[in-house]
């Protein structure tokens, strides 16, 4: 602590404390984030007696400040004097757990859960449990929703360690039951979403006798939003129960959820289907889930079908091995066939993103006979997204049957996407080109796709031209420099004489992208002369892009070329009439350290980094 004569080390802390109430939110936020510094300076005693009471009442602040506060308090135990005093943190967190902003409340609950672990069993019972009870019976629903998340953490430890085992547990269950039948849907929603977690900490007997009735009640709540959350709780509970109890205790309710009147509930079932499948095991999956899944795939609401279609692959993968193929072939595939010609594009596109995965499960013969026709239909779908999803997953099929089977249909699909009127679609297919090139091989590519890749370079949308240049670079990475020299470099360089200046600039952008992957020889021999020649272009934009291009490819070139060819051109550009050309030329010159350097440095033996090294040693010498 500071002496009476004053201590300037207190000043920064004093500022922080004062800024806890600054008018500027950002300053308050900064100050709250350094709360541990303040607490450290105050010492544990003053933190407990002064700082925490002040913070308890600071619930008027902006959400972001409260959120930061709630988070800080979760790791404050040491600062209030260790586990012995951890309960001092409860009052401020209690008030934060009642604010209306969900994120703040959730964070306060998270911190409460965290510090509950630091309470001794006795403290837990004396301080923490009453807090949970207070919240659970609070006037406002905000406190009651927060309480829902706390039962799970505080009771297991209380009950094991103390003599009040039974009674504590019973009150916990009783409180939770009250929350499950709360008047407001908000609290019932919170209870519904925390039910699974609460069940996990209870003994199996309690789950069967107390939690199951609550689950059944929540799953038939009048509010759709409560019922749909109960689905997830059902999955967690199912995972806890032994196989023989599942049929009686949870399956009737889950079956009912899968056929709920509200599509949102059915959607939730579809969305959680893989978890459900894992929780109930192979037997129930075969008998119950397969028909349920079929129904979801045929649901009248497109959102539900979409969610179910997304799960087709994982569902099939996790089917019990002995009957997997039969189930897929007789039950799932017929539904999938219908979905391929669904009226809704999102359904088809969801299916297209997973359907290729089935081929690894079904093997070569089934794929060729049953799946291939579906792929082909989807490749001709009217919606580009469907086709794109098929194309993006080609690798799965390639492993099983080889891509040749598909290539006949693939090509028209790709060409059509490549020429789609929507530039975003064209952009998406460009991004798959390197992948396709890898799958299809260089010959097929040269024959069919190369011309497309070149055509994109003169697309009228800049984003496409840009993506096309980047695509060329990736192709060269795949097929090598020699391939580049024979196929694409001549075409790219040919564009330098195009009458459209945008196309001429594309040449420069391509060179920017390609020089490194093509290597020094191609760059120096083929690209550099073209770039240099373009420095006399009549369009200023081309000229300054020449300057930028030279700067970009500089590292690839050898020093003699730099000195003998690049430097004079840049120097000439630096005297250009156009301001921008001048600017970029000068920037390139300084960026490449090309000015006033003795020529002996630039001998062939020096790499670019040693040029840099020499430059720096020159500039340092007096």
């Amino acid at each position, binding site marked *: *602590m*500071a*002496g*009476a*004569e*004053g*201590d*300037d080390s*207190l*000043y920064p*802390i*004093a*500022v922080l*404390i*004062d800024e*806890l*109430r600054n008018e500027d939110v950002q300053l308050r936020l900064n100050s709250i984030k350094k709360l541990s510094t303040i607490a450290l*300076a*105050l010492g544990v005693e*003053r933190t407990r007696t*002064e*700082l925490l*009471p*002040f913070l308890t*009442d*600071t619930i*008027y602040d902006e959400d972001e400040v409260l959120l930061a506060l709630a988070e800080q308090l979760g790791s404050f135990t040491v600062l209030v004097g260790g586990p012995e005093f951890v309960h001092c943190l409860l009052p401020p967190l209690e008030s934060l757990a*009642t*604010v*209306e*902003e*969900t994120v703040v409340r959730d964070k306060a609950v998270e911190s409460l859960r965290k510090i509950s672990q630091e309470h001794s069993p006795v403290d837990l019972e004396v301080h923490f449990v009453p807090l949970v009870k207070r919240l659970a019976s609070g006037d*406002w*629903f*905000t*406190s009651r929703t927060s309480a829902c998340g706390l039962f799970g953490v505080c009771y297991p430890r209380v009950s094991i360690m103390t003599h009040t085992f039974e009674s504590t547990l019973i009150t916990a269950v009783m409180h939770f039951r009250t929350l499950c039948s709360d008047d*407001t*849907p*908000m609290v019932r*929603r919170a209870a519904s979403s925390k039910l699974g977690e609460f069940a996990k900490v209870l003994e199996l007997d309690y789950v069967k006798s107390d939690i199951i009735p609550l689950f059944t009640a929540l799953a038939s709540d*009048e*509010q*759709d*939003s409560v019922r749909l959350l109960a689905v997830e709780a059902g999955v967690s509970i199912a995972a806890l129960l032994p196989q023989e109890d599942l049929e009686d205790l949870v399956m009737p309710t889950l079956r009912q959820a899968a056929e*709920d*009147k*509200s*599509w*949102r509930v059915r959607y939730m079932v579809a969305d959680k289907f893989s978890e459900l499948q894992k929780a109930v095991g192979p037997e129930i999956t075969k008998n119950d889930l397969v028909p349920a899944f079929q129904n979801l795939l045929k649901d*009248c*609401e*497109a*959102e539900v079908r979409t969610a179910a279609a997304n799960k087709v692959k994982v569902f099939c993968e996790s089917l019990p091995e002995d009957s997997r193929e039969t189930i897929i072939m007789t039950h799932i595939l017929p539904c999938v066939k219908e979905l391929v010609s669904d009226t809704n594009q999102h359904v088809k596109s969801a299916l297209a993103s997973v359907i290729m995965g089935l081929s690894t499960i079904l093997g070569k013969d089934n794929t060729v006979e049953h799946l291939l026709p579906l792929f082909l239909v989807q490749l001709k779908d009217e919606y580009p997204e469907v086709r794109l999803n098929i194309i993006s997953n080609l690798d799965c099929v390639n492993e099983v049957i080889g891509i040749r089977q598909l290539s006949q249909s693939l090509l028209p699909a790709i060409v059509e996407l490549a020429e789609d009127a929507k530039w975003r679609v064209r952009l998406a297919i460009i991004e798959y080109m390197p992948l396709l090139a890898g799958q299809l091989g260089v010959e097929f590519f040269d024959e069919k796709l190369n011309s497309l890749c070149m055509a994109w370079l003169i697309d009228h949308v800049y984003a496409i031209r840009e993506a096309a240049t980047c695509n060329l670079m990736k192709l060269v990475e795949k097929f090598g420099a020699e391939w580049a020299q024979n196929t694409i470099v001549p075409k790219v360089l040919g564009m330098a004489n195009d009458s459209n200046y945008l196309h001429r600039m594309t040449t420069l952008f391509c060179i920017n992208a390609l020089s490194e992957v093509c290597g020094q020889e191609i760059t120096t021999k083929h690209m550099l002369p073209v770039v240099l020649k373009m420095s006399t272009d009549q369009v200023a934009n081309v000229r300054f892009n020449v300057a930028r291009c030279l700067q970009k490819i500089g590292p690839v070139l050898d020093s003699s070329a730099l000195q003998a060819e690049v430097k004079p051109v840049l120097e000439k550009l630096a005297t250009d009439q156009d301001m921008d050309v001048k600017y970029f030329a000068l920037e390139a010159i300084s960026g490449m350290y090309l000015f006033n350097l003795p020529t002996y440095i630039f001998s062939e033996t020096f790499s670019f980094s040693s040029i840099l090294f020499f430059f720096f040693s020159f500039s340092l010498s007096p």
Partner: protein
Amino acid sequence: MMAGVGGGNDFQWCFSQVKGAIDEDVAEADIISTVEFNCSGELLATGDKGGRVVIFQREQESKNRLLSRGEYNVYSTFQSHEPEFDYLKSLEIEEKINKIRWLPQQNAAHFLLSANDKTIKLWKISERDKRAEGYNLKDEDGRLRDQFRITTLRVPVLMPMDLMVEASPRRIFANAHTYHINSISVNSDYETYLSADDLRINLWHLEITDRSFNIVDIKPANMEELTEVITAAECHPHQCNVFVYSSSKGTIRLCDMRAAALCDRHSKFFEEPEDPSSRSFFSEIISSISDVKFSHSGRYMMTRDYLSVKVWDLNMENRPVETYQVHEYLRSKLCSLYENDCIFDKFECCWNGSDSAIMTGSYNNFFRMFDRNTRRDITLEASRENSKPRAMLKPRKVCTGGKRKKDEISVDSLDFNKKILHTAWHPKENVIAVAATNNLYIFQDKIN
């Protein structure tokens, strides 16, 4: 004297308060555009054409003066919306508050949604009665202290202060409506609400502002084929999946959100067959529904068209169970009402707390109440003339042809500039709020 209407007991309506300026010339911005009690009736909110929201709070009834009833006093006033300009469409966006809806109370603070033509805002109204005191770098008078003289750290202490009410915007739900928002309605799940404009209805999550779901879209591919617009929409008070919307053609559609994500197909369609004998040029205009409200019980809904109020049983689609004439005497005046645009006025309607009576507005600062049990109706006037505290309201009568009796007003002398479009009924008691241009009248019952 005729008894008041309002659910069983005989009582008289009497004057309680009037808010707003007395001057004759009314500033456009001061015109009240919506009135709404909160769920407990303790707070009353009004919105005006100037984009302001004024909240009144009911005073606690004092025990020693049994006769004094809780009066409503200003609790908070804030600017909810500002005028804006849409540069893309070259359109001015008025700041006028079209609707206010309270959220059920969730903690000590109160929340409401307010909407102008395009944007919906969620406001928090909260109280503060403590202030932090004690700075390290300043002394009590605000003078800076020398930073080297700081010998100890001071933690601020909270001290009581005069109550301060703050209104802060919590969320802004924008950019989802191309046309003018006419309704907002909070769902009974208390996590979503819907907003309706002329052609579309969107569903929002109260915590998510960057997206909403379009659940109804009646915009035809070709706007020249447009034959009807959405005039109002409301969520069912208990069934979270049900909502209704009314149209300019006088029909109401009830939709079930469980059935499908898009509610283009209604599950019920309420329409009263037109009486061919009364068909006229104005039939279509006056059948347009200006407001639709579910009863608190959720069994009925009420619709207001230009001349009448209808109560529908949700289980009967082919005709209303009750029809009340609001100002039938105007039927002969439709031509002039068309010429002065009054025929397009959008009157709202409301239920009393027990659904036994309904109220709606008319012209000449008259408003009407109908008792659903006794089928009695009454016309009252919101006027300053009889604005002594607890003065009883005299029933008014409009003379319809024939000889004008004493105390009657002839149709021709009605003032069509004085219209009562917005009214609200306390959810539990016989307290009503009536917006007459820039004045807010509050009336209460007096049991005989």
